[in-house]
């Protein structure tokens, strides 16, 4: 508890980090309670198409090319975007942490093999790879999450590997070897908790980039056809960009706020968790 209080004291020193956290909590609130406040199916053609925002009190953000309510879309889309962002990050963490930990702890040929594989993934442009993967496996929530995690895990693996390489040389790890502790326990109970801070920081930024990637895929028409995400909405608005720019701009603002919030939080976490800055 004391540790958390110390952490919070350092975190809140940075105004931008607090703003980011407030924004992020707001986005979460919208995702959780929004669909109750604004019920209805975002795919419903609720009103006349091309309704500009502010012209009809019932549809404050207007409607799209087929008369679907944009506010409903943004609120329901927040769930999809956040879910995909977090699920993809979690999956990437699972793979990346395992690969990085094994490579960094065992070194030698295990490290060589795992790192060559990692490099293969890193040499391919990530977004293109995601496009190809989704296109091959049919767009759905699951394939999108897997495609995004497949292109993002290498950076986690590299980070964790670097942390493991330095931590495994620390005397407290050697001391565990000397008392006869098993390798699994050393890796997961001794070393891993010590590299959590950089992993947490990186994860927050990865959620943001996963949301962007999902939007990009949906924009290209590679989103889950059954789900209304922010990217899908921008994709829909693309055809009317010149006449009704608000259709793309409004979900775009939602993405901007979420990604900005995640980045601000990530930066704040970095300052609060980075031991080098702790003493100031």
């Amino acid at each position, binding site marked *: 508890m004391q540790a958390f209080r110390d952490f919070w004291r350092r975190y809140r020193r940075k105004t931008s980090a607090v703003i980011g956290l407030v924004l992020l909590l707001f986005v979460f609130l919208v995702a959780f309670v929004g669909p109750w406040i604004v019920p209805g199916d975002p795919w419903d053609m609720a009103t006349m198409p091309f309704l500009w925002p502010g012209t009809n009190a019932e549809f404050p953000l207007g409607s799209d090319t087929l008369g679907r309510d944009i506010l409903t879309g943004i609120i329901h889309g927040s769930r999809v975007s956040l879910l995909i962002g977090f699920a993809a990050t979690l999956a990437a963490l699972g793979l990346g942490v395992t690969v990085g930990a094994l490579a960094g702890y065992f070194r030698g040929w295990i490290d060589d093999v795992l790192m060559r594989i990692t490099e293969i993934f890193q040499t391919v442009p990530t977004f293109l790879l995601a496009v190809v993967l989704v296109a091959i496996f049919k767009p759905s929530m699951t394939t999108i999450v897997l495609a995004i995690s497949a292109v993002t895990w290498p950076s986690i693996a590299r980070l964790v590997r670097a942390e493991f390489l330095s931590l495994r040389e620390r005397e407290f790890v050697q001391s565990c070897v*000397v008392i006869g502790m098993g390798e699994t326990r050393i890796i997961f109970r001794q070393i891993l908790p010590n590299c959590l801070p950089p992993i947490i920081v990186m994860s927050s930024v990865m959620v943001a980039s996963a949301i962007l990637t999902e939007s990009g895929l949906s924009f290209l028409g590679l989103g889950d056809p059954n789900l209304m995400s922010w990217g899908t909405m921008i994709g829909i608005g693309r055809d009317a960009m010149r006449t009704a720019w608000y259709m793309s701009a409004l979900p775009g603002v939602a993405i901007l706020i979420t990604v900005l919030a995640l980045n601000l939080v990530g930066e704040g976490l970095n300052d609060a968790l980075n031991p080098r800055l702790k003493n100031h």
Partner: protein
Amino acid sequence: MSGPLLSIAGLIVHFNTSQGTVRAVDGVSLSLNKGETLGLVGESGCGKSTLGKAIVGLVKPTAGSVQLDGMEIAGLSRGELRRHRARLQMIFQDPYASLNPRLRVGKIIEEPLSVHGVGNARERRAAVVQLAERVGLRPEMLTRHPHEFSGGQRQRIGIARALALNPEIIICDEPVSALDVSVQAQVVNLLGDLQRERGLSYLFISHDLSVVQHLAHRVAVMYLGKIVEQAPRKSLWARPLHPYTRTLLAAVPVPDPDQPKLIDQPMVEGEIPSPLNPPSGCHFRTRCPFAQAICAEQEPALKEVADGHFVACHFVERKPDGTVTAP
């Protein structure tokens, strides 16, 4: 009792680096008896720490043997070594790096017991409290994290952890060199008390000759991967024979204002060469004031010149009448 508790023979540890082979430990033989402290002294880069790590299996020996009570343990896998862990423990140099910052102190001391499945949770808890009290920590400190402790207290935690399995041998790798003088004395005294109580054997690795003189029964002096002199404490200080040992002894600053000021003393020049590329023959010859041609050509063997007194120098000789000549 038959033979020494720990005996090391022809131990070699080489590391391959991009710049070549580092000959960290280059053929070392030592033995350690029950209840004895063997001091291992030398300057940085001489390989003394690597030797300690090779003994406990943290570093894989390239060749040679390490026998614990007659059983070979060098080159065993970690699983096979596990059975012997309880008998052979280690205390580390850096009291800040040697404790996991994320664990509570009680947990840190308990780990060796839980790893080896000693007792149930309640029994282990009681054992931890007892260990903590023995090394001078109060039971209520056990719920804190390492960063809340001073260097000396952390070293006590490390000692309690090493003692948990009731070992017979403890490799002490510079355990007091990171501590302030007054705290260093506390830890040195604690180590001495524990040895008397439990009949522990220490391999005490240190660069500080005065601490070694204080604690050790026998002393081995290491230079560039090799033992150059080994003797009971008394004979080493009464008559150091190897030129390097003499250099080392003369260089230690002693808190005695009556000893001659440094400026009036002759000084050995140069520094310890790289273990990547040690000089041929006798490794010390590049700094030795007595070096001759033979020193470059032939490596001097470690030979016994007096009772238990071993020296590796071409110019130290035992005469037929038992007297020893030294350069």
